[in-house]
């Protein structure tokens, strides 16, 4: 197997009395869609934010293409080739769709015209070509989510971190989003996705990792992992797992 694209080595984070993440390690291979699961409060978002540079790890290393990025700030991590989306979309409301999609392009190029062309290409890719000149405050919630994804792509990432892509979407919208994510992966972007909706995870990822109380408790194919007793216990409690055993 080739070298992993991302290797998380024993990262920990404590907030006051709460050990949010403890000694978390996992690897992400190039071209993979890896899902990070876990019940509320398991430490998923903290782990996610440590990779994206929004939260500094107390200890441990995060190797991206062999380079430790654990001490870098978000903008340097973006320039290294990692993009992220936010759980609540954070568009630039008074800019148009194309302008939103142009901002990230300046991290890779100085040519504003080439950046505008690419932004329009991304808008088309999202199926938002007709809204290209619309101010974002007039978009629907789902279009904003798609734009959030497109804006991350505008930085030409090698690794895309996605925080709950289908939150609040209808089933049809969820399917559209799943199809988009697949097409992004097919273009060579590796993806780490934090997601709650099982259907999405089953449709997208070959491998899932599960966190509980800041620890990694499972790693494997989605169908195998969801039947593991530790995972059932984490999600449904002690008695449920015991009753099934």
């Amino acid at each position: 197997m080739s070298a992993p694209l991302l290797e998380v080595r024993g990262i920990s984070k404590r907030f006051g009395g709460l050990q949010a993440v403890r000694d978390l390690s996992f690897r992400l291979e190039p071209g993979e869609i890896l899902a990070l699961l876990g019940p509320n409060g398991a430490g998923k978002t903290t782990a996610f934010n440590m990779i994206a540079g929004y939260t500094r790890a107390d200890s441990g290393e995060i190797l991206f293409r062999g380079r430790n990025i654990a001490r870098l700030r978000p903008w340097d991590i973006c320039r290294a080739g990692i993009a992220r989306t936010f759980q609540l979309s954070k568009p630039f409301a008074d800019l148009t769709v194309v302008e939103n999609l142009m901002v990230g392009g300046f991290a890779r190029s100085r040519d504003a015209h080439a950046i505008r062309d690419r932004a329009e290409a991304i808008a088309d890719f999202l199926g938002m070509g007709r809204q290209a000149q619309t101010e974002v405050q007039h978009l629907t919630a789902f279009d904003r989510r798609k734009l959030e994804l497109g804006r991350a792509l505008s930085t030409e990432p090698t690794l895309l971190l996605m925080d709950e892509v289908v939150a609040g979407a209808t089933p049809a919208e969820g399917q559209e989003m799943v199809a988009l994510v697949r097409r992004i992966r097919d273009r060579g972007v590796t993806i780490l996705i934090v997601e709650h909706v099982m259907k999405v995870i089953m449709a997208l990822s070959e491998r899932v990792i599960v966190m509980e109380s800041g620890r990694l408790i499972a790693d494997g194919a989605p169908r195998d992992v969801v039947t593991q007793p530790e995972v059932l216990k984490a999600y449904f409690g002690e008695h449920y797992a015991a009753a099934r055993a």
Partner: protein
Amino acid sequence: MTTAHPGRPRRPFVPLPDETPTLSLGAAAPRRPHGARAAGAAVLGAILLGGLAAAALPLVVQDAYFLHSCIVVLFFAYMATAWNFVCGYVGQLSIGHAMFAGVGGYATVLLFTGLGLSPWLGMPVGGLLAALLSVVVGYPTFRLRGPYFALTTIAFAEMIRIWVENTDSVLGIPLNGAAGLTVPLRGESLAALQFNGKAPYYWVIVALLVGALAATWWLERSKLGFYLKAIRGDRDAAESLGISPARYQLVALAISAFMTGIGGGFYAQFFRYVNAERLIGVDLSIDMALMSIIGGQGTVFGPLLGAVLLAPLAEITRGSLGGSLLGLHIVVYGIILMLAVLYLPKGLIAPLRAVLARAGLGGGRR
């Protein structure tokens, strides 16, 4: 406006597996005429043509009082445009920009009286010193979120004003305290930037304003402008797109302070007098901010529009009430600000833009 071009071949927008990210944009993207580009060129053309047209005014009108008033209005338009360069685009409020004008004005006068340096050089040197001060003010505050920048600017400006008002000389440099400094008369002298008539001053301020508007036009379409608008929109999201908010806000603030400092130098030359209350005081800072906000901050022409409407208004209220009700113009400003916030929160420029866009000038976003 360009939207979808089904027939046009599209290049992949995400890197292929064997490409490094920087390569995928390629060196030679195909250049096509662009709606946005044409509109942008039209805006720059309007700035230059407007400047030329304005420059012709003294050839037609010789009335000294009228020209004097025009210079004052254009001075405020220039200062508001300089304020807008950072505050309008990044969505931060500075209530202390006059400190940069003060540094520029005092530096211009002192370099002239002390070293005999021509104001033509003194003004940019004063601008550089103002930019330096802006870095001192901005560096610690732009790292923080919230109202700290606004608070820091007003605190710094007032500290400097009070210090200058109470200091007669520092390190052998005469500041002359509250009395202020006068520019020694040299008669009609281009090198000393002193003229008997008003017209030359008028041409200088028109040129400065054209420069400031052109700089704002450039900002609108530059990387810096996009970054500032992104920081204004959402700071977290901006960081995720490769933007260090502190760094780019600081760059914009330094440029804005440089322009403001040059404006302070012009003020000193035009009135041949500077004092701390007028040039560093909070009144000038508030004028710059309000004209920009009421006219339309974050736009190229908004601050100009705000100044053209508000500066004469202040002059008229002051003149007609003859000092019997000092500060009434501030009350008038307040009322206009309230009305603008209620009915035109994007500034007086917003309805004009809509008309321009409908007229097919494509400047809907300018």
